[in-house]
């Protein structure tokens, strides 16, 4: 932002200082990159006859080190599948939930079983809470929370028939959606149910969060994808007409810019969430049941008995498959695909149990100890838990815009002096920062209802309601207007005086010029010039 236009010296200095600071931080971050030890993995063909997508896990195992070889394994659990699976945020622990009621946790690298339990009713989804000590399970009738010993901690009966779960780690919110089609947000730090949003689109079993702004993305059976925050009542933030058939799966990438959706008609669409536009579409003969995006943007899809991975799917249209993995006969159908954070590992939950396979280049190579640490000790975990609770971000701030704290508020009351009315935004105003998406919705509503173009719901597409002014504000506005109309002609201010003087000078100059012309003492003055055609 150029500081030239800022008139206030103090504000200018502050802006400039913060800009310099930002630049210094960016430079420092760049310099620190040298210190990062990890390099992203890769798999490259060395000549034209080699194809990476034909490489099987057995062939791959021959090329990698012993430690990586151990990451390729199968857990045969044929009786309770198909399994849903989830990794912790650091990627250390794995949680498996079999449809027929078997739940187990693992320290998967060490091959250590954490806890194992049979709930003897259907299990639809599993999710870790803020760390590996607690996890939530969407069971037949309600939502349950267990600790790492498998002891039932809570039964949340208000979450009726949950089918998909999501945990927002920075807000400590556990969200569920299920057969009722009601999205429920439970604050797990206080235990309060903070929001119930009726989607009105019937049963739903597809939910993922945007990791950058904690907005939840639901895929509905009517082909729509809706974006939700707990602060917008029963209205979604955005309503996308994504597919012409039921939405099977959605996922958002780590940067929060791209959304991948798959529909029953066999299409996978990649959306740019900054524009809400489908950038490109893949079509398959068979519908993609599950898809997932890795930290580095590798797109994983489950197509029947095969898992197919695309490396550049987010950026390049028609990207060729990067790798494929075919499930063994007893394993199909596959139910769930999960990328392990900070590892080149993908977990596939299927009818025959669970398979862990290697996809080089899928994981972020360098973790941040202070954010998600795979090598965390118990002491560190306890401390980070306390810090995370202290730094909890209020749920009221969830919205499409995240960077609102400290920004200039656009709807700040204009003070009498006019000019730039600036009020810095605290976190409470964050959720009201919907101006951009409202505008966007209005624009999308106006666009012709095309097949792939996103369109806003009729109700949401309305322009924002006109701001209602208080009596005082109306008074001020009227006063301004009257002043403009010249009612206070006796009130002189600097601006008025300057205008008056300028006018007088102009009149004087014109008069003098005329007199000089009449006297005829202007060099090169032609008296006939007054009749010349003015161009």
């Amino acid at each position, binding site marked *: 932002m150029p500081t030239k236009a800022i008139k206030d010296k103090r504000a200018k200095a502050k802006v400039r200082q913060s800009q310099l600071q930002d630049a210094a931080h960016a430079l420092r971050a760049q310099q620190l990159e040298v210190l990062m*030890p990890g390099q992203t993995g890769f798999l490259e063909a060395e000549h034209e006859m080699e194809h990476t997508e034909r490489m099987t896990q057995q062939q791959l195992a021959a090329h990698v080190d012993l430690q990586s070889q151990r990451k390729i394994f199968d857990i045969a659990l044929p009786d309770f599948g198909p399994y849903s699976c989830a990794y912790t945020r650091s990627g250390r622990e794995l949680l498996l939930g079999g449809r027929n009621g078997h739940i187990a946790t693992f320290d998967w690298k060490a091959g250590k079983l954490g806890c194992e339990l049979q709930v003897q009713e259907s299990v639809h989804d599993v999710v870790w809470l803020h760390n590996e000590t607690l996890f939530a399970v969407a069971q037949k009738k309600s939502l349950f929370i267990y600790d790492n010993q498998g002891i039932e901690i809570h039964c949340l009966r208000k979450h009726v028939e949950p089918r998909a779960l999501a945990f927002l780690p920075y807000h400590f919110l556990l969200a569920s959606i299920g057969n009722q089609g009601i999205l429920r947000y439970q604050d797990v730090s206080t235990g309060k149910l903070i929001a119930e949003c009726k989607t009105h689109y019937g049963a739903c079993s597809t939910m993922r969060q945007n990791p950058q702004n904690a907005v939840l993305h639901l895929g509905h059976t009517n082909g729509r994808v809706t974006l939700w925050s707990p602060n917008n009542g029963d209205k979604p933030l955005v309503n996308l007409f994504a597919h012409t058939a039921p939405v099977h799966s959605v996922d958002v990438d780590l940067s929060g810019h791209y959304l991948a959706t798959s529909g029953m008609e066999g299409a996978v669409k990649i959306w740019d969430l900054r524009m809400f536009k489908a950038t490109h579409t893949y079509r398959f003969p068979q519908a993609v049941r599950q898809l997932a995006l890795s930290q580095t943007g590798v797109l994983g899809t489950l197509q029947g008995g095969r898992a197919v991975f695309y490396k550049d799917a987010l950026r390049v249209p028609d990207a060729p498959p990067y790798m494929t993995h075919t499930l063994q006969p007893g394993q199909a159908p596959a139910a769930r695909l999960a990328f392990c954070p900070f590892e*080149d590992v993908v977990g596939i939950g299927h009818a025959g149990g669970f398979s862990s396979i290697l996809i080089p280049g899928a994981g972020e190579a360098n973790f*941040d100890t202070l954010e998600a640490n795979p090598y965390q000790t118990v002491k*560190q975990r306890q401390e980070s838990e306390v810090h995370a609770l*202290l*730094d909890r971000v209020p749920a009221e701030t969830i919205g499409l815009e995240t960077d609102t704290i400290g920004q200039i508020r656009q709807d700040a009351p204009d003070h009498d002096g006019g000019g730039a009315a600036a009020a810095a935004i605290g*976190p409470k105003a964050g959720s009201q920062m919907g101006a951009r998406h409202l505008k966007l919705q209005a624009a999308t509503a106006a666009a012709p209802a095309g097949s792939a173009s996103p369109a806003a719901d009729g109700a949401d597409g309305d322009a924002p309601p006109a701001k209602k002014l208080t009596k005082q504000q109306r008074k001020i506005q009227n006063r301004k207007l009257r002043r403009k109309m010249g009612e206070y002609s006796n009130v*002189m201010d600097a601006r008025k005086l300057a205008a008056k003087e300028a006018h007088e000078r102009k009149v004087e100059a014109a008069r003098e010029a005329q007199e000089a012309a009449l006297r005829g003492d202007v060099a090169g003055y032609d008296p006939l010039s007054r009749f010349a055609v003015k161009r």
Partner: protein
Amino acid sequence: MKVKTISRSDMDYCRERKTDIYKVQRNLDPKLHPFEKAREYARALTSVKMDRMFAKPFLAALDGHGDGVYALAKHPTHIGSVASGDALGCVKVWSLTNRDCRWTVQAHKGFAKGVCFLPSLASETSSEKFISVGIDRMIKLWSVGTTTPVASFMASDALNAVDYHYHEPKFITAGTDVQVWEPERSEPLHTLRWGSETITALRWNKTETSLFGACGSDRTITLYDLRAQSPISKTVMALHANAICWNPMEALNFTVASEDHNLYTFDMRRMNKAQNILKDHVSAVMDLDYSPTGTEIVSGGFDKTIRVFEARAQRSRDVYHTKRMQRVWCTRWSNDNQYLISGSDEGNLRVWKAQASAPIGITSTRQKQAMQYAGALKKKYGHLDEIKRIDKQRRVPSMISNTAEKKQVMEQARKRRDRHVVEHSTSKAKRATIKVVPERTKNVLHTE
């Protein structure tokens, strides 16, 4: 095929033995740190709340004076030594570490108006010497521990203040004129005066050590240079200045405590305009002192409060008061930048923390780092409403808040009236006569 997968060795990321520090690996990619600003804001909010929770600035009240404490001096080299003089002529030397009176003497008849230590380089306390002056015209040189003065001189008139030179054996006294003395001589070296006035306060410059400033009862601030043995400038203020103090780091800047509730900072090269006005007291300011780094100011006054200012700010950053503290006559900032000392009308010395919520005693490195981080966050988000509100919130006696409110209303009314006069005078000639005088020059009547 070329293959590489992420494969980490535990040795690289785990500490070898329990006594080692944890290995920390950072990745500053913003993608891995969502809600960074929101989380920082939450931390800033917590830390500013913690600050207010732990704000317990009052440390000790030292009692023993039979009447109001009118003079206070800190030892130039011993942090724990403070001398004070009261309205009954009694002078006491205090040990702040033990919080008790080390030595006391009936030094003067009537007010003991000024005390100052001699800068002794020897560390043993037995050689501690100080000077006291009183309105009985006596200047007495004391050695702590002996009940009779080492030397005593008689001045020509009642004395209001005394200050010792930074490194030379010289001191100045304030009476109807300024006199420069040496401890060995019973007659003053020089007598300096400009006009007829009574000098009420004076202070040496600690950096340009031959300069000193004095406040006169005829509303003047006079600056003297000892090299020329003459006054160099004189400024008349709208109201009387009660005390003066030089900035220890910025040699040419000084601040005066004025009777009009404000403190005025001047650059001695441009005396026609105050560099800064520090407002918040609601009654006359009686004394002030700079912190040793020159960045902060402590002042005390007739409104029974002590206020701490950042030297460049316009408003105080903190206010200290207690139920029992009466009008504050003298304040000092300790040389280790940790404590404030005040002497008040009811005869007590009080010791305060300079940073209200700072911990006392040894702080661990982790604690220090956490405090620095919290400080940086508060600075970054301090302009936001919620944080500003919590940070600024102080409970003061209703007398002070009511008076402050009244003062604000009066100030606004005055400003509004001035604006209206300008706006509603239509004729050019009339407008030309109206001069808008900035507040920084308004209270400086003239300089010589």
